[in-house]
């Protein structure tokens, strides 16, 4: 088996990298894949909290890299679904505790055991970002329909291109169709127009996300919201399936717009 390493990044903080990582990892596991999520945000770990696995942490990423424990010991198994694991970040160290070479070596070990290795990148473009980017086969760039987030995503895409990691694929998070319709929010076209990369998913703004994050249960386990469906669809697309975009608004013209984006 040779797994795929997918890094989730954004540049700007607070746009939903960790939520995306947790949900895509869980969704791929529900599809029967063997998945490990890695929190590369050393010093500011929170993927474990969002996944509700905080109380199970014994060893972390830095322990593995420094040889304090074996890789298997740092893998926390998520009991809610078969085949989902987490390697948490260290909380007491900083980004310099791990190098890009360490991440490549670690992911190469994990590739033998897992179908997907999902790396949650820290915000920013410094060492932590470089660590997260080094092992990536594919990169998902998360942005929200805000000018500042799009600007940072653009910067990230430029850095990816320069590093030979391709332009990446775009996840547009927290879209509010009602605001777009009133002309108060950038729409999908506006964002794709500037960034000019492939759109792999649009996730609507959804209270269910906040509730699930606070409970430590990824929203896709709850199974009853548009956001949950959106994440499941992205997971299917990562898996190579051709899934049409969700109809976020019961309005044909909007739907046609989405369909056109996906097909074109």
């Amino acid at each position, binding site marked *: 088996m040779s797994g795929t390493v997918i890094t989730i990044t954004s540049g700007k903080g607070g746009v939903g990298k960790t939520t995306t990582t947790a949900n895509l990892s869980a969704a791929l596991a529900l599809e029967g894949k063997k998945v490990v999520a890695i929190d590369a945000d050393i010093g500011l770990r929170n993927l474990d909290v969002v996944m509700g696995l905080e109380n199970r942490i014994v060893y972390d990423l830095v322990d593995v890299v420094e040889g304090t424990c074996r890789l298997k010991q740092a893998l926390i198994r998520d009991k809610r679904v078969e085949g989902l694991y987490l390697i948490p970040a260290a909380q007491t160290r900083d980004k310099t505790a791990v190098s890009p070479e360490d991440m490549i070596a670690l992911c190469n070990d994990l590739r033998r055991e897992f179908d997907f290795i999902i790396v949650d990148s820290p915000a920013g473009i410094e060492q932590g970002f470089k660590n997260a980017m080094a092992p990536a086969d594919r990169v998902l760039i998360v942005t929200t329909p805000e*000018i500042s987030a799009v*600007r*940072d995503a*653009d*910067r990230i*895409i*430029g*850095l990816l*291109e*320069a*590093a*030979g990691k391709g332009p990446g694929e775009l996840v547009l998070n927290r879209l509010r169709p009602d605001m777009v319709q009133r002309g108060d929010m950038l729409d999908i076209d506006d964002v794709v127009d*500037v960034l*000019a990369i492939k759109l792999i998913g649009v996730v609507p703004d959804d209270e269910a996300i906040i509730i699930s994050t606070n409970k430590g249960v990824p929203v896709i386990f709850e199974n009853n919201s548009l956001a949950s469906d959106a994440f499941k669809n992205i997971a299917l697309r990562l898996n190579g399936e051709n899934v049409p975009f969700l109809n976020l608004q019961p309005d044909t013209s909007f739907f046609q717009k989405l369909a056109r984006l996906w097909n074109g």
Partner: protein
Amino acid sequence: MAPERVTIKGTSKGVIVTIGAGNWQNTLRTLAQKLEQKSSFFKGGRVAVSVGDRLLNADEIAAMGELLTEHHMTLWAVRSNAEETRQAAISLGLEAEADTQKTSSRAHKSAMPNTPGGSNEVVTIRRTLRSGQTIETLGNVVIIGDVNPGAQIKAGGYVIIWGRLRGSVIAGAVAPENAFVCALELKPVQLIIGDAIARAPADDRRSKVIPEIAFVQDGQIVAEAWG
């Protein structure tokens, strides 16, 4: 398409190879041919390669170094306008510096008035300039692609953008008289031509988009339909 531009010059500081825009594989082939013809002349020389705005990774630079070694020359420095390329050169243990052939702030101050051929030089970029990316040259700039918000161009002469301009442009830093900026969609965050400065009008909501050219008239920047 024009042949890949590669020139080899001997100077008091060693051999300088200047590489223009174009397909990298073809460029390497052109360089190999030129070395074939001239290697006896430059044999044993140390070489600085000036690559302008081209993005090169460490492997590509190393391949170029090997090619030079085959012709009994040593690559010791890479001159580039791209930070990424300079970092790649440094990672190979080479010297890296801004491409003073065409640009750099130092050249801007000291060598500007009599830079040989400075403002006739055209830097052509065949990609979209993204946020944080900068092109700086004493000559002119042609971009085939968009200039996104957060990207910046500084040019001694004119700037032509075959795409959307939504970043910032400084044109006419050396030769303001004949400087202009044109784009298929002219919506810069900020536009400076010579001493004149302008911002795109704020009320740009979905008005019709036409190619425009901006230039200085009576000390003010004016824009009119391009073509």
